[in-house]
């Protein structure tokens, strides 16, 4: 069977502008325009715009929507006010991570929008439907109708303010507003992102996404705005130590091992994976996710082994040259007894042991 690769509403725009395209999570996406390092730096220093229309959006509504979500995810959804957003792992019965998602509260107790990882959209949709008990809760996959643009960087607010009919100063981090009009198009705008910078994510009807993309690029020009690909998105999130599903997060590792325990609320009642997570917390996880920087020459890459005194103690989940730090850095799982800040480890690169040091997370924290 021929594999179908999906295209975002901006596919032809990317190709026309000469972006290099790759397949990611079943989608044809731009990996870079001018170059990953330049795009990375412009997002840190000015502003970058990213096509993230591949992300999945699942709408859950009904009288008992909140109860269902409380059972599906590990964080406490009942704390959400209308217009507020929550980050949460969604786990299976053994505590492994099915996905990490954002939950947008559109109406308290009743209407929520889940934003999920592109490659997991279909899996999540089935998972949610299979694990919902009530008949009067609707689960709708609106991914194919929803375009998404991420505008990130210190000038993001200034740029978006030129065209949005809403005072963005009033929008706090992890809050959103519905029906913000941009050039007559009603969008959901949230103060969120995946870069470690201030920024916004804009949800747009599929067929109007190109209009908004072109508009933002045009009006952002004076502020140095540049289009950015998945390559820069990956280096930006790595520096901020934001986990990526399929790398740091997996179905056989718990949020505890991933360092996401603060997004698990054991006192909220029953939820999927609770027993397993409680057990993991009481015994302590076998592996812990750590950040490390290379002390000798070499770039760590996903899948490389981590060794200490000739013993294999873990594996790399993400690694790259860090444009902001100008060092080679990585994230990886290391046996708990070795997972201490300052500890020297070795990364096995092409059968050579290359020295690295465990450091505090994150690598990069923006000045506020």
């Amino acid at each position, binding site marked *: 069977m021929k594999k179908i690769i999906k295209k975002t509403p901006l596919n032809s725009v990317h190709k026309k502008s000469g972006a*290099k395209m790759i397949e990611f999570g079943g989608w044809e996406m731009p*990996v*870079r325009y001018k*170059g*990953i*390092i330049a795009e990375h730096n412009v997002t840190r220093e000015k502003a970058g715009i990213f096509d993230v229309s591949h992300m999945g959006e699942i709408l859950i509504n009904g009288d008992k929507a909140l109860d269902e979500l409380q059972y599906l995810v590990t964080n406490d959804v009942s704390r959400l006010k209308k217009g507020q957003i929550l980050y949460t792992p969604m786990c299976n019965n053994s505590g492994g991570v099915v996905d990490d998602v954002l939950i947008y509260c559109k109406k308290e107790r009743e209407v929520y929008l889940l934003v999920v990882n592109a490659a997991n959209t279909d899996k999540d949709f089935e998972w949610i439907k299979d694990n919902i008990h009530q008949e009067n809760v609707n689960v709708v996959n609106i991914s194919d109708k929803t375009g998404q643009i991420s505008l990130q960087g210190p000038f993001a607010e200034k740029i978006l303010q030129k065209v949005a009919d809403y005072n963005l100063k009033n929008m706090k981090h992890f809050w959103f507003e519905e029906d913000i009009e941009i050039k007559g198009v009603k969008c959901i705008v949230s103060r969120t992102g995946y870069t470690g910078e201030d920024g916004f994510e804009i949800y747009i009807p599929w067929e109007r996404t190109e209009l908004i993309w072109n508009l933002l690029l045009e009006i952002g020009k004076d502020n140095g705005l540049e289009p950015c690909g998945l*390559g820069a998105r*990956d*280096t930006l999130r790595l520096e901020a130590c934001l986990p990526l599903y399929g790398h740091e997060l997996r179905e056989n590792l718990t949020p505890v091992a991933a360092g996401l325990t603060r997004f698990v609320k054991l006192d909220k009642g029953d939820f999927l994976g609770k027993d397993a997570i409680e057990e993991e917390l009481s015994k302590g996880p076998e592996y812990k996710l750590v950040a490390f920087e290379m002390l000798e*020459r*070499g*770039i760590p*890459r996903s899948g490389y082994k981590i060794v200490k005194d000739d013993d294999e103690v873990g594996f790399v989940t993400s690694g*790259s*040259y860090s*444009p902001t730090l100008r060092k*080679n850095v990585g994230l990886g799982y290391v046996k708990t007894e070795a997972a201490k800040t300052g500890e020297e480890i070795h990364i096995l690169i*092409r059968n050579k042991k290359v020295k690295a040091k465990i450091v505090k997370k994150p690598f990069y924290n923006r000045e506020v």
Partner: protein
Amino acid sequence: MYPRDLKYTKEHEWIRVEGDEGTVGITHFAQKELGDIVFVELPEEGEEVVQGDSLAVIESVKAVSDVYSPISGTIIQVNQRLEDEPELINKDPYDEGWIVVIKIKDKDELEDLMSNEEYQELLEGEED
């Protein structure tokens, strides 16, 4: 973009032959495909290489790529500047971005390589 005086491999290396020595690098196409080059792992001077074997490793932000030797012989010089300035390969792939100089063992092996016309034909097949 693909100088006439060089010979090319289908893996996008070039060699410039002067007497019994050959300078080796990667082509403009290869550096463009890789994107920002951030790391080069170089061989040692004096190492013997066989045509088609991995000679060096080049890493861009996203990709790890082997450089295959266009020819058999002994490495007599390596471009140490690439350790601190790997981006030289992006900026100037045929001159400052050279990787090694090889003392050629058997010049007949040059017959296996492509001229610039042949290489450009190959690229036309690879590019969209």
